[in-house]
């Protein structure tokens, strides 16, 4: 009985100490990051540029729509919203394969750095339901580095996907 009580007290004190350390450490790290403006750039994902067709037109909607691709584009470091940046997206959808021209389209970010484009429903292809997005410096004003993303949908039944870009200034 005595043994168990001691054990629990030890356990609780160790737990509290750990939690305190983690919270304090976390807060310090967060504070430091915010002060220094250390928002890291999004790295290009492996396979992100596969089946990319550079320079797809800026469109109101890709094909018949039904699936919403949304996201934000921010600047690395201070995290400032980037307006008017061109984001291209493509995927294997109910209307075509990734390589098909009709599966590609682009949009520009709003003043708050967000973008939103309707496209056909993404369906599983090559083993998983996934999308491709690109910020291509060559089709923008080249002030940020090119990034290719290949996000995976948490469920193939999802009718939307949110993607975040943090771009590195050249």
């Amino acid at each position, binding site marked *: 009985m005595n043994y168990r009580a001691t054990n629990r007290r030890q356990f609780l004190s160790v737990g509290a100490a750990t939690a305190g350390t983690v919270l304090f450490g976390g807060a310090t790290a967060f504070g430091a990051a915010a002060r220094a403006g250390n928002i890291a750039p999004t790295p290009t994902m*492996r*396979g992100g540029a*596969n*089946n990319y067709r550079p320079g797809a037109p800026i469109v109101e909607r890709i094909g018949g729509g039904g699936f919403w691709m949304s996201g934000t584009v921010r600047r690395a470091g201070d995290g400032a919203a980037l307006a008017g940046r061109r984001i291209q997206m493509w995927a294997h959808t109910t209307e075509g*394969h990734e390589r098909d021209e009709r599966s590609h389209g682009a949009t520009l970010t709003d003043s708050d750095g967000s973008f939103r484009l309707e496209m056909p429903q993404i369906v*599983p*292809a090559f083993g998983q339901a996934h999308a491709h997005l690109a910020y291509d410096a060559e089709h923008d004003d080249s002030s940020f580095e090119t990034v290719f993303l290949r996000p995976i949908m948490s469920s193939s039944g999802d009718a939307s996907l949110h993607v975040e870009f943090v771009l590195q200034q050249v």
Partner: protein
Amino acid sequence: MNPEKFSAKHVLWSRLLKSVLLWVALLAVITLPAVIAASSPLLAWRDPVYSASGFAGVLAMTLLLVQPLLVGGYLPGVRKLRGRITHRWMGAALLGAVVIHVGGLWITSPPDVVDALLLRSPTPFSLWGVIAMWTTVAAALLAVFRRRLRITMRTWRCVHALLVMSTVAASTAHALLIEGTMGTVSKVLLCALAISATCWAVIDLRSLSGITRWWRR
């Protein structure tokens, strides 16, 4: 009534019933995944080449179950020698299915297949697929050049069994991680049966006796 006569007849009938049931079960297990894959909604959004390469993958997985059953002579009515000969033909068919699977995927999306073959694909199941492909090729090459290799039958069997076991394990990982045309239940069932049949044959035929011998030395 002669009880001995009755018993002999009974045994004969029960044997026949057993073989019929076994064949029915096997045919069901073989055709079910293909039928389910053929009715997948995903096919509506795939061109014929991509669909065919998917089916070749399903067929290859099915052959992984059939191969140990043939070589072990476990199929009723298929004697060991006939089983062995068919095992070779089915081995060639398996290799063909793998070639169609990978080739069809290459035509569908070259960069994805190049990434997979160069082991830099973002998807872990691609790596398992590539491992299974190479172990299949190695097992087949070993079969083709068996006589020219000048190794003992015991060693040959041991290496062939190890390659085949790797193929079945890697193919199972590859199949289970993929969201494709196969149904989940039929996929898990097929993989479990392929693993069981392979292990059974390896134990029953003492295919790994080379290792135990070497270990004891």
